[in-house]
């Protein structure tokens, strides 16, 4: 159990999330501009997304399709007659001074996703998913006091996924975000990269006396863009609210911000100063009708989702829940794994390589699983060598690293470098006899009851053979010989 600043035994924590997911469509939601990340400021703009006078939006159909897929994958009902609304507010990053969004008839409603937040599996209900456009990006220059606006992000399609207040801890909140990220990237509707801002979360937190059915006053902390920040902001806010109640004060309904550098939250605006967004139906876009046929078409294209894969891996491959869960977190990793298993039919070995050294090497090299620098065939060949007993584990580890770094062919490499395991009984017996003769002290130690000496003796042989000796057999042979 983690250590908390406040005494949480008296309170229940209630958390709801609003998650913004940037869609990975090629073009923006209402114009043909590119959505690619990282371009020079204001190079991916046109009169429409910069809100010039007289322009009109034309809805990108792919956005609707993505939202339908997201809704179906999260068990939502699709609102077949849905429409857009205008959310009016002034801010320099919003050149039309209204965001085209959905209030009255969001495209998806009443869904759920399953999470595993440490206390077993649970369902987090989804209140709604709606489509909207992103705003531009402001950068403030402290030394000159100037503010620059980049409209490239203006009009990039977003989905806002609003959960019910079903989570009770930061761990669950993160598990929920991770579950959403996995589903969205499996669907291909978003890459859900928090660091690039393609997934951001607003957290709603309240506390209530343990067991009470009455919800406490909630606060909303906006725009959290890493799991670390989400966790810290939630913990901080829970502590703050408990402190208030313990001191006889009240929690005020307000919108807050989180300063991740300083590790503190602060008030942005209170409820009294909340914006009146003056929502009304967007007159420039006709209401949409989403046909049964369209929904069926999108449904047919939904790939196997992480939870289904996980269940299949448990069943078919007899993986542990943990391993299966880790593999399915990345669609690319899962697919790589499946392709490799299809070649060698050794799921446990394959998963061991990928989860151990595979993930470590990806991490060290700053790579994503989709950038895996070798082919499934190479790994399956390696696994076959291990399974056949042609190389031992130590060699296999080294060869895997070679595959990863130098893209070598494992079979050729093992042959060329003479790395096959020494399993020849005569050869091994000779080696064991030699090592016993050369290390009388260790032999004496072992016989005197110091079992650790065995390891030393085995190690000598492994060193002499550069790790190629069949360690298990060497072990047995030494024991046999020293028993006499």
């Amino acid at each position, binding site marked *: 159990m983690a250590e908390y600043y406040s005494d949480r035994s008296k309170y229940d924590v209630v958390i709801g999330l609003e998650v913004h997911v940037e869609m990975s469509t090629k073009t923006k939601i209402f114009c043909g501009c590119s959505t690619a990340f990282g371009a020079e400021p204001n190079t991916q703009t046109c009169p429409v997304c*910069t809100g*010039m*006078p007289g322009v*009109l939006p*034309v809805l990108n159909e792919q956005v609707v399709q993505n939202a339908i897929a997201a809704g179906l994958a999260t068990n939502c009902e699709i609102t077949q007659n849905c429409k857009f609304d205008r959310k*009016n507010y002034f801010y320099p990053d919003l050149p039309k001074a209204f965001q085209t969004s959905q209030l009255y008839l969001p495209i998806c409603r009443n869904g759920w996703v399953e999470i595993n937040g440490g206390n077993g599996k649970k369902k987090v209900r989804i209140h709604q998913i709606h489509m909207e456009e992103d705003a531009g990006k402001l950068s403030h220059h402290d030394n000159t006091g100037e503010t620059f606006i980049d409209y490239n992000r203006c009009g990039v399609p977003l989905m806002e996924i609003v959960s019910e207040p079903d989570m009770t801890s930061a761990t669950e909140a993160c598990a929920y975000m991770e579950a959403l990220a996995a589903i969205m990237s499996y669907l291909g509707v978003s890459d859900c990269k928090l660091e690039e801002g393609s997934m951001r979360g607003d957290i709603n937190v309240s506390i209530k006396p343990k067991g009470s059915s009455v919800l406490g006053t909630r606060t909303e902390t906006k725009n959290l863009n890493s799991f670390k920040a989400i966790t810290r902001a939630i913990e901080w806010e829970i502590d703050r609210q408990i402190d208030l109640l313990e001191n006889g004060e009240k929690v005020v309904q307000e919108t807050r911000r989180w300063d991740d550098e300083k590790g503190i939250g602060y008030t942005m605006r209170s409820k009294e100063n909340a914006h009146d967004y003056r*929502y*009304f139906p967007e007159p*420039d*876009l006709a209401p949409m009708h989403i046909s049964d046929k369209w929904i069926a078409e999108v449904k047919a294209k939904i790939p196997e989702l992480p939870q289904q894969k996980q269940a299949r891996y448990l069943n078919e491959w007899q993986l542990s829940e943990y391993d299966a869960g880790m593999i399915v977190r990345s669609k690319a990793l899962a697919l790589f794994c499946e392709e490799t298993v299809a070649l060698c039919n050794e799921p446990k070995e394959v998963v061991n390589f990928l989860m151990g050294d595979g993930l470590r090497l990806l991490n060290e090299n700053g790579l994503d699983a989709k950038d895996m620098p070798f082919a499934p065939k190479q790994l399956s060949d390696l696994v076959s060598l291990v399974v056949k007993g042609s190389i031992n584990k130590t060699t296999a580890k080294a060869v895997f690293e070679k595959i990863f770094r130098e893209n070598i062919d494992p079979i050729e490499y093992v042959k060329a470098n003479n790395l096959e395991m020494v399993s020849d009984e005569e050869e091994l017996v000779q080696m064991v006899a030699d090592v016993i003769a050369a290390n009388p002290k260790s032999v004496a130690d072992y016989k005197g009851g110091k079992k650790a000496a065995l390891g030393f003796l085995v190690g000598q042989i492994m060193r002499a053979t550069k790790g190629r000796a069949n360690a298990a057999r060497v072990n047995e042979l030494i024991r046999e010989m020293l028993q006499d």
Partner: protein
Amino acid sequence: MSILKLSVKELRKKITNKEISVPEVVKAQLAHIEKTNPLYNAYHDINKNALLRAETVQKEIEAGTLDSAFAGVPVAVKDNICTTEMTTTCGSKMLTGFHSPYNATVVKRLQKAGAVIMGKANMDEFAMGSTSETCYYGAVKNPWNPEHVSGGSSGGSAVAVASYGAFASLGSDTGGSIRQPAAYCNMTGVKPTYGSVSRFGLVAYGSSLDQIGPIAHNIEDAAAMLAIISGYDDQDSTSLKQGPFDFNDCLKEDLEGKKIGIPMNYLGEGIDPEIKAAIYEAAKKLSELGAECEEFILPMVDYAVPAYYIIASAEASSNLSRFDGIKYGYHPKKFTDLEDLYLTARSEGFGMEVKRRIMLGTFALSSGYYDAYYQKALKVKALIKQAFDGAFAKYDTILSPVAPTVAPKLGESLNNLLQMYLSDIYTVSVNLAGIPAVSLPCGFNKENLPIGMQFLGQALSEKTLVQLAYAYQSITEHHHKKPQLEVL
């Protein structure tokens, strides 16, 4: 000068027959505008490339690559329709000197048809007004009597044609802004079915009501212009998926079997008796052409003006929010912070009427008031549409006055705003219902000021309306009467 008094059709004949070249027409047009514009203020910005454009068009005509009803015809474009060559100011200080980075769809279509845009026509600021007096660049004056208003908001578009500064023009109609100035200036104007003409590039006032349409000397010219600008545009999601109108087979003088309804509740209290008489006189003429006229009561329309002002203002309050002094338009020299920048830019950049409607619309959309105002206005809108559906089940068209009075004197209306709003009584319901209407001359009052009438039809009944107007104009002379210009 005489060449400038021709109809579009007559001018086209002379160009085709090589009696006159396009550059000659445009030169004469420019010279005339230079003389008349100081008197009537129809234009805000004159196209510096007009002559160059005329030469190109002439070459294309000679090469045989250009043949359209508007090839080489000088036209005016309302200043809320985006053009790259000329400024687009919407009659507002907020957009002084503003050049749009793109051309409106209707502008592209006119250019493709070979029309020569002479300039941008003055208007009520952001199309908010019924007299063209809220224009930041001065009021537009009526060529029939410069002490009277031109009507609005497309006053400059109507006066440009009425004072021979263009052969036809584009206006926009959100609550009568094409039809009413046309009526005040003895012009023929069409407010097309919502969605039949692309709004892409029209600076929005009330997005669900706005529609671009033509103003010309007669229905034939207006219909020809409408045919060019109409038809589906993939840049406007509210544009109807259909081709352009084709009016060739409806220029007929016969109205046999046509049923015309005249709403008697439009001709009761509040209407100028001379206008009422002109409407009945017109009904008589239409009967002579074989139509059957009948009076009836058009329900719900009493609620049209309040519903219109709520919906249009609500949408305007959102549409005009983008004018914040940051990216384009009026930018104050002094401001303390972001909030102050917004306040100063909008306080100094917008005129009174615009501010009034933004405030009205903002209020109507505010939380707690939305249902009582905006939502209710939408219900009224639906009921008005139903009332028209009921009427069109019985009649091919509704004959109605355009305004309860002739053009008032300059200054009169702005002193009595409620009166000005109420004067939209006959026009706004058409926009709420999204239906088409043609406004055309039907007489003059004792002071020789024009009186207009309008034909209303069900959605996409433009051809019927054009036929009615054409038949009427074939046996009447009102539209041939021209004002005595001070310079001529």
